[in-house]
């Protein structure tokens, strides 16, 4: 069985390296097909491991030793338990679908092979992150996905905006990684181990304040990866990358790594509920914050990106309140329908020659029926209508907030649910229904290739059934007696009436929001007065936060760098040049020594001989020479001095 673990882990790497061999060549279909095939192998292995885990087996392997210095022992270890296998299934499923989709999407791209190399490398890093059994292994995967994200966002590196966005993403992640490292160091310093088992064994007896510090810093690291406020600006800009990248990385996998970290470290976070509450509050804030920005945006992918950000907030609310299995469940369901949304958007972009403004589209339902149904169903799942997946995960989070008596959080999340439904369907209606505005702009859209639609269909099916079909099995697996490692808290609203009012009320609220969106956007009228209003401008410019960051952080830092560059020029370069100058000057002065005249060269030779003789004499026979001087030279000198004295008289 361990073999399947290794296959699941390393098959993406093999695919990546093979595609990388063709990196500089023209598009070869083999690279894409092989990479997808490797991903599929990884998926099958994960499936087999899932069956095993459901039967109650967990696997813990240590591949080889990494660091073994003194007391510090870190292996390359991998563990497959219920939490891991959930993430593995999510990652491999979405990755396989995205790989096959990308074969069609990147069809006309010159750097086809390079894309698959990067994409598979990303999946490999994500698998390391998920399957690792110690914090350092997780950190390797963490950094790996950061790098691959940078490579993929800046895939079209000739575009200035793409490279800028890639750098922004990477640098923001780095800032958060610093905090994460501090958290890891804190844990190691106080516990002497960084493997999960070791930490969890000691966490009950550890000092509370230290745990708060460690949990806080780890969460800051998670904030960077999962784009929580204030490190959120990179996620929207990351849409510069190709759409499959957005689907895979910025919907389903990388951004959920932060949630995974909190869920994985749940024994730690259980002991510091105050940090958990801060996490939950921040998550709720981000949920509302992102949803508000998505309301008015005119960029199709950005809307979906803000939607991701908002849902991540939901996950953190659940994780912060201690409902880790709920957070993980929402992670899983969200991955499916969000990826589906992104891929559908990719279809639309492809059809509309990379146009992103939904106001320039409209009535595409007639031309792209499959995409229409996929995106609509995904949006319904996102909105959380029964019986799609979103209902079982998102509404559960609302229940958690309510049951734990955090009514403010509940209200915020409820309003956000309405906003979510509103903007999702705003997008859907603007693109697919109404007048065919695209004809005015001269576009000739067509449906995507058949195999791309086929590739997307598993996601559609999962988005529909994941809720009611998997919830029971999943709950049993992650919290049950045999393989459960998450606390098994059931959230029941005790009063049945309240429960039904809540559920039905939420559903009605969401449906009302959808209807409102329909009425408002079916004609795609743009209200000029609203557009110039203060709130609209505020939301449209993302609360001016990117501008603030630019003014407060980027510009002063650039100035500081310029100053340092000048200093470097003046001090370091001058020193090096000075040393060279000394040699050069010496050479010029001693150049006269070589005048080609044999006689002068002989004199130099004798002079050198004398120098070496002095040296040798002192070193070899210094003491004897001293004796010689004493016995022979000293009396002579004394005699001479005596003679001079006598002459003097």
């Amino acid at each position, binding site marked *: 069985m361990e073999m399947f673990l290794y296959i699941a882990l390393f098959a993406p790497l093999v695919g990546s390296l093979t595609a990388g061999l063709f990196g500089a060549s023209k598009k070869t279909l083999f690279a894409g097909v092989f990479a997808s095939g490797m991903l599929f192998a990884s998926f099958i292995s994960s499936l087999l491991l899932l069956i095993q885990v459901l039967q109650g087996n967990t696997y813990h392997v240590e591949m080889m030793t990494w660091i073994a210095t003194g007391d510090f022992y870190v292996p390359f270890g991998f563990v497959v338990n219920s939490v891991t296998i959930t993430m593995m299934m999510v990652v491999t499923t979405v990755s396989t679908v995205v790989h096959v989709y990308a074969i069609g999407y990147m069809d006309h791209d010159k750097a086809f092979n390079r894309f698959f190399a990067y994409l598979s490398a990303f999946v490999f890093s994500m698998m390391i992150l998920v399957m690792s059994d110690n914090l350092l292994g997780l950190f390797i995967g963490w950094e790996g996905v950061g790098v691959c994200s940078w490579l993929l966002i800046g895939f079209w590196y000739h575009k200035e905006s793409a490279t800028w966005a890639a750098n922004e993403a990477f640098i923001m992640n780095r800032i958060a990684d610093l905090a994460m490292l501090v958290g890891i160091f804190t844990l190691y310093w106080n516990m002497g181990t960084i493997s999960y088992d070791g930490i969890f064994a000691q966490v009950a007896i550890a000092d509370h304040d230290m745990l708060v510090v460690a949990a806080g810093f780890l969460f800051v690291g998670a904030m960077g990866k999962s784009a929580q406020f204030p490190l959120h600006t990179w996620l929207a800009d990351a849409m510069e990358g190709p759409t499959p990248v957005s689907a895979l990385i910025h919907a389903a996998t990388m951004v959920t790594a932060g949630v995974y970290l909190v869920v994985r470290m749940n024994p730690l976070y259980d002991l510091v509920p105050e940090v958990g509450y801060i996490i939950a509050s921040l998550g709720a804030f981000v949920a509302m914050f992102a949803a508000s920005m998505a309301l008015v945006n005119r960029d199709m992918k950005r809307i979906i990106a803000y939607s991701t950000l908002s849902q991540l907030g939901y996950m953190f609310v659940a994780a912060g309140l201690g409902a880790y299995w709920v957070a993980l469940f929402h992670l899983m369901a969200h991955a499916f329908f969000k990826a589906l949304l992104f891929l559908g958007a990719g279809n639309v972009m492809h059809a509309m020659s990379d146009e992103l403004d939904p106001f320039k589209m409209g009535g595409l339902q007639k031309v792209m029926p499959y995409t229409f149904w996929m995106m609509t169903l995904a949006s319904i799942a996102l909105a959380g209508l029964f019986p799609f997946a979103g209902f079982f995960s998102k509404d559960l989070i609302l229940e958690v907030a309510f049951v734990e008596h955090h009514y403010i959080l509940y209200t915020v999340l409820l309003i956000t649910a309405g906003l979510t439904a509103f903007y999702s369907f705003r997008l859907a209606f603007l693109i697919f229904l109404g007048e065919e505005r695209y004809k005015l702009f001269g576009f000739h859209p067509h449906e995507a290739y058949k195999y791309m639609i086929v590739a997307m269909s598993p996601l559609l099916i999962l988005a529909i059934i994941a809720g009611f079909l998997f919830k029971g099995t999943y709950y049993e697996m992650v919290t049950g007696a045999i393989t459960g490692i998450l606390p098994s808290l059931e959230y029941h609203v005790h009063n049945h009436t309240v429960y039904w009012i809540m559920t039905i009320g939420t559903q009605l609220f969401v449906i009302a929001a959808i209807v409102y969106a329909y009425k408002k956007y079916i004609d795609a009228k743009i209200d000029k007065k609203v557009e110039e209003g203060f709130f609209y401008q505020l939301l449209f410019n993302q609360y001016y936060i990117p501008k603030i960051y630019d003014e407060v952080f980027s510009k002063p830092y650039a100035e500081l760098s310029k100053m340092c560059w000048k200093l470097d020029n003046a001090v370091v370069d001058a020193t090096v040049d000075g040393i060279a100058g000394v040699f050069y000057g010496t050479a010029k002065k001693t150049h006269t020594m*070589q*005048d080609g005249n*044999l006689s002068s060269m*002989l004199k130099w030779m*004798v002079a050198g001989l004398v120098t070496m003789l002095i040296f040798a004499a002192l070193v070899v026979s210094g003491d004897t020479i001293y004796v010689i001087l004493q016995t022979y030279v000293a009396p002579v000198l004394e005699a001479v001095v005596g003679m001079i004295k006598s002459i003097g008289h």
Partner: protein
Amino acid sequence: MMEITLTHYLVLSTVLFMIGLIGVMRRKNLLMLFFATEILLNSVNIALVAISHFYGDFTGQMFAFFIIAIAASEVAVGLGLLVLWFKRFNTIDLDNMTQMKG
């Protein structure tokens, strides 16, 4: 001072070596330079043979023998080169032989 010891021979060798060095440094005519080199070699030979005699060791005489052989062949080759140079440049004044400048 009645008895001639090793020291006398060594002092003699020193004086001759000094004369040879002065000649090497002073002479501007290539042929005269060769003469001075001969003086240097001979002074060393005297020192070697003297030490060999006073310490009953043949090594010194062997060395001196080989030095003589080497000096002879050196003279042969050196003179050949000198003649060629003279034929080409018509002078053997060291001050005019600065082709190797720089």
